[in-house]
């Protein structure tokens, strides 16, 4: 029982990342009809926003401490981060420690901006071009993003620790009578992604803006004829999708040290998730994200890998192949949407 629950938990954090990226992909595909191969790169950029903020907060002022001397008797130089100098030592350390959650505040405007610029500057010109062209140009963009990040931050993974209060282990099952110690940050990640996902759904479901967007997804032309500037709203949705990917990336940084080819690693899997969930179906993307994450974690157990060596690496693809062949529109895809 414990073991099963543990695997489910293991699957949830990766599944959350898949679900968030796939949600963004589906939003873009559902609204603009564009296949965005650069979406994984947006996820990666989000993670590097966290890295950047951590570095910025650690920028230090160098002072000479008159009280301390090194072993030669020279005064010792002390590095004090600016935030500690400004807000006092304890408050400064808290700010530095919480840099990853703080990066959430930074990542939303940054990703919205990147999303707008991307849509207005590039994607807009590709609506009427074939899907192959869209794939190719966003693929090129993904390479460019990836190489820029590599040029700035280098090719090695960068450790981005979580706040100390959330870096430990929580015994989650204590109140169920089970012993289930689990890294706290992963639970935080799952809760966070659940909040983001419900936020996006609430936005689409309960606001007038969301209603118009949904109407536009169903029949863009008619909404346009009603005198609504649907293009502008879709541009905003592109920004929202980019922001969701960025948020997923920021919070994922402590789980797995970010490196520049993260985007590509997650992109391929997220596309598989979208396809399994059903192209254009938002709930499908979320459901498939969590399902495949959990499935992957079960496939990584020692039992599975000893009986079926390598199953953990290919399980997602296998599932995708089976789904695509048996139920081409995916788990929750609408009939007739991108089915051929």
């Amino acid at each position: 029982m414990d073991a099963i629950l543990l695997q489910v938990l293991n699957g949830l954090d990766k599944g959350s990342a898949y679900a968030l990226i796939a949600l963004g992909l589906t939003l873009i595909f559902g609204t603009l009809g564009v296949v965005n191969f650069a979406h994984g790169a947006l996820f990666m950029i989000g993670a590097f926003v966290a890295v950047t903020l951590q570095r910025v907060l650690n920028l230090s002022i160098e002072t000479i401490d008159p009280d301390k001397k090194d072993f030669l008797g020279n005064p010792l130089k002390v590095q004090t981060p600016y935030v500690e100098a400004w807000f006092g030592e304890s408050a400064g350390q808290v700010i530095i420690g919480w840099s990853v959650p703080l990066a959430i505040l930074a990542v939303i405007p940054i990703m919205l901006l990147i999303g707008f610029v991307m849509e207005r500057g590039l994607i807009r010109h590709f609506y009427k071009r074939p899907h192959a062209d869209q794939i190719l140009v966003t693929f090129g963009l993904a390479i460019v993003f990836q190489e820029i990040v590599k040029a700035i931050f280098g090719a090695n993974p960068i450790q981005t620790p979580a706040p100390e209060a959330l870096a430990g282990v929580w015994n989650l099952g204590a109140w169920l009578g089970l012993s289930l110690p689990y890294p706290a940050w992963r639970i935080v990640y799952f809760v966070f992604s659940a909040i983001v996902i419900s936020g996006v759904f609430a936005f689409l479901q309960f606001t007038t803006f969301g209603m118009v967007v949904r109407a536009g997804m169903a029949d863009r032309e008619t909404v346009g004829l009603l005198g609504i500037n649907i293009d502008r709203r879709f541009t905003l949705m592109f920004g929202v999708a980019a922001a969701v990917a960025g948020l997923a990336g920021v919070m994922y940084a402590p789980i797995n040290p970010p490196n520049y080819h993260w985007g590509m690693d997650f992109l391929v899997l997220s596309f598989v998730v979208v396809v399994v969930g059903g192209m254009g179906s938002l709930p499908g993307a979320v459901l498939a994200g969590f399902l495949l994450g959990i499935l992957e974690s079960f496939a990584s157990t020692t039992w599975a890998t000893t009986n079926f060596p390598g199953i953990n690496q290919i399980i997602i693809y296998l599932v995708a192949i089976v789904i695509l062949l048996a139920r081409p529109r995916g788990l929750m895809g609408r009939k007739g949407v991108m089915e051929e």
Partner: protein
Amino acid sequence: MFGLDKKDARTFLFVIAITLLAPFILNPFPTESALAQFNAGYPDLMQRFVIFGIFAIGFNILFGLTGYLSFGHAAFLGVGSYAAVWMFKLLSFNIIPAIALSIVVAGLFSLAIGYICLRRSGIYFSILTLAFAQMSFAMAYSVLSNPSFNLTNGETGLQVYASDPQYLKGNGPDITHLFGLEMNSTTTLEIGAWAFQFNAGFYVCAAFMIAAFYIALRIFRSPFGLMLRAIKTNQTRLNYTGLNSRPYMLAAFVISGMYAGLAGGLLAATDPLAGAERMQWTASGEVVLMTILGGAGTLLGPVLGAAFIKYFENIFSKINDTVLHTWFSFMPESIENLLVAIIHPFVGKGWHLTLGLMFMLIVIFLPGGLVDGGMRIWNRITGRSRTQTDPVADPKPAE
């Protein structure tokens, strides 16, 4: 001639001439001059030109003719390489059985994958091929290299060891050869300040490429090729006329898979090792780029694209800060440093950034590729109207 009409025969002869004279054409600068680093006429690079030319020609049969964008063709190349190295390990260093097996294995592999992937079209097809290629990559990297069943030798890559059986080797040479002609034997011809290198491996690969080009040419002009173009233009209508388009698609997929296998086999033949990274999806992206850059659906495009990319990859990644400083040394130091700082991220290790930008620019502004661009310029010069260009190469307007 060769069953080709006059125009095609001219194209074919042009390709033969360019390929056979490549050691001269690619070596325009004297060996000792400062520009010698732009020379491409050395065996290793020339071999890659023709090998990736074969890969791109094959990919073009699928993508250029039918419009199905496969993102997993590197898997077939990788499989071909593995098959060839296994032949070296088991039989001898003769390349003929190795290449034969690599084509056959890649063909069977693409038959299996194509059978499944071709049930879908559009982006589903792209994603399915991508998924299969990543799966093959993951398996080659880890699963298939456990101690009890070591097919791929994992991270190290498959290579030939002295302890391998090599049943047919006898007292044949210890490096890859074609019935005794060693692949790395090179004759150098020195004329004045120039040194031209003639490499056996290059000419063997070139012969394969010429044959591959000829077959592609025949496919393009055949009823089969016409059927593939019909699929690209309007598959639904084709289905409504009562034709089952899937066997044609599958044939095209397998043919292009076999081309990739041939390229993989030749890669192993020039350098007998095979690694999983050849199957990674970045490698698949590269062949897509080669085809697009040269011009998808055109005959010469893929070859040009492959040569273009491999050339710039080689030249750009060789340029480092020292080279840049010598270039700009005539300028005042501050401007020199500024220029070097600006160019630095795009060359050397940053070559992929240039590649990505190039990729985007080509897709945005020149969807027809280099061939189409050249054609437009040519028509501008000669004053001919654009209606005479090949309708297949003609891109749709951007908006």
